[in-house]
């Protein structure tokens, strides 16, 4: 495929993806994986203190950072306008941005009262935003050739496998996300869309200088992103069933 992100010169435009939460970590590496394969990648950012995405864009001109707080409809609309202007279509949505903790208690019957404001905020970002992105960007996805929707979920979303005893906030957002993706699947699979619901594994966090905060037994986000993009781009024999799949390609119960 001829790469031509600006759409000038009459060549075939590159396949186009939007990756959210690409400031660092898994999203950043997913953007890199796609750019390495010649994709035009719009990479959503929210962090001011991280320049990893700028460095990636300097290395891969196919990466185009854009400001995108996924919980803000105005940001989504502006991103849509930019994508429409540059490429006119979207082949892949890679919905990945998430809040992963922070202060605020969320244990029923715990010592501290539940922080309901934090609960609602995380539901908006981790659960609803992926649905909103599809909703607002559907006209661009309709013009895309691939019509493939990736959502980064987690093993912690699994009701069947849940063994935790407290701190409900993050886990419940990913269960809600899975249900939202099921509803999108009900609606859009008959229209040709295909879905990836991905469990990336417990990952090492990336610090502003690009180094890792290492957790024991954690997977490297670059490695998990490579698996995610391989799963994203390969067609599956079972596209008509929604499956939560991990970085080894193993399936998890909902």
């Amino acid at each position, binding site marked *: 495929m001829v790469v031509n992100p600006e759409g000038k010169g009459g060549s075939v435009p590159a396949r186009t993806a939007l990756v959210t939460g690409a400031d660092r970590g898994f999203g950043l590496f997913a953007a890199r994986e796609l750019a390495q394969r010649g994709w035009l990648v719009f990479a959503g950012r929210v962090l001011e203190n991280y320049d990893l995405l700028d460095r990636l864009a300097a290395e891969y001109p196919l990466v185009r950072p854009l400001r995108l707080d996924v919980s803000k409809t105005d940001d989504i609309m502006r991103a849509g306008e930019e994508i429409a202007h540059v490429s006119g279509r979207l082949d892949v949505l890679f919905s990945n941005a998430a809040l992963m903790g922070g202060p605020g208690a969320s244990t029923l019957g715990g010592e501290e009262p539940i922080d*309901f404001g934090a609960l609602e905020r995380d539901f908006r970002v981790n659960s609803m935003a992926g649905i909103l992105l599809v*909703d607002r960007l559907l006209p661009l996805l309709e013009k895309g050739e691939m019509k493939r929707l990736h959502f980064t979920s987690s093993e912690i979303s699994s009701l069947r496998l849940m063994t935790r005893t407290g701190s*409900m906030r993050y886990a419940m957002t990913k269960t809600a996300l899975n*249900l939202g993706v099921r509803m999108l699947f*009900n609606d859009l699979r008959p229209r040709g869309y295909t879905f990836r619901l991905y469990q990336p594994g417990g990952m090492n966090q990336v610090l502003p200088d690009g180094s890792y905060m290492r957790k024991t037994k954690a997977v490297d986000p670059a490695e998990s992103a490579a698996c995610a993009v391989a799963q994203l781009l390969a067609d599956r024999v079972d596209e008509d069933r929604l499956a939560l799949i991990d970085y080894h390609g193993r399936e998890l119960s*909902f």
Partner: protein
Amino acid sequence: MGKVYISSLETPFAEKLAALFEKDGYKICTVPEPGIEYFIDVTDEEVPGDDRKAGEGIDADAAAEAYRKNVCEPLARLSEALPGMVGRKRICFLNSVKSSINLSTETSGYGHNMSRAALNLILVLSKNGLAEKGYTFRLFDPLAGTVPPGLAAHSAMGYFTRDRFADDEWDGLGRNDELNLVVRDALGRELPW
């Protein structure tokens, strides 16, 4: 006399369920107070504007309001009641197949259905933490619109008040069905998550 908290008596299902408990000698309260044996939350709130399909302009604020009504407000009431609960310390909520990741066929009502999927997870996780303090949990689908509310209330009464199997008097292998929280519907069927 035991006390049963029911979050609202405004639906025919809740009204009939309250009548069944009263007949059994329970006192009904609609505000959390000390001494509750059954905490029954019958919330199932749909919010105007939370009815759109993808591409129709899904309303994030309506979805957040559905989350507040179906998750935050019930949890706030439960947090208040929890320390004073007695006896079976049974926590009962309603849910439905619309929030089953395995079985949902819905294409609209994102805020409502996703909130109630979140609620399922919250109850499973909280059950893991609270079981050792003697709390027990029930999740029930009254099959509203399919099963008459009176019949659903009888069904709920049986499911809420009956204890579940534990093999402590049998082979002592530690199997305890109380730890296995599932949604059961008014016809006794177990819904997959």
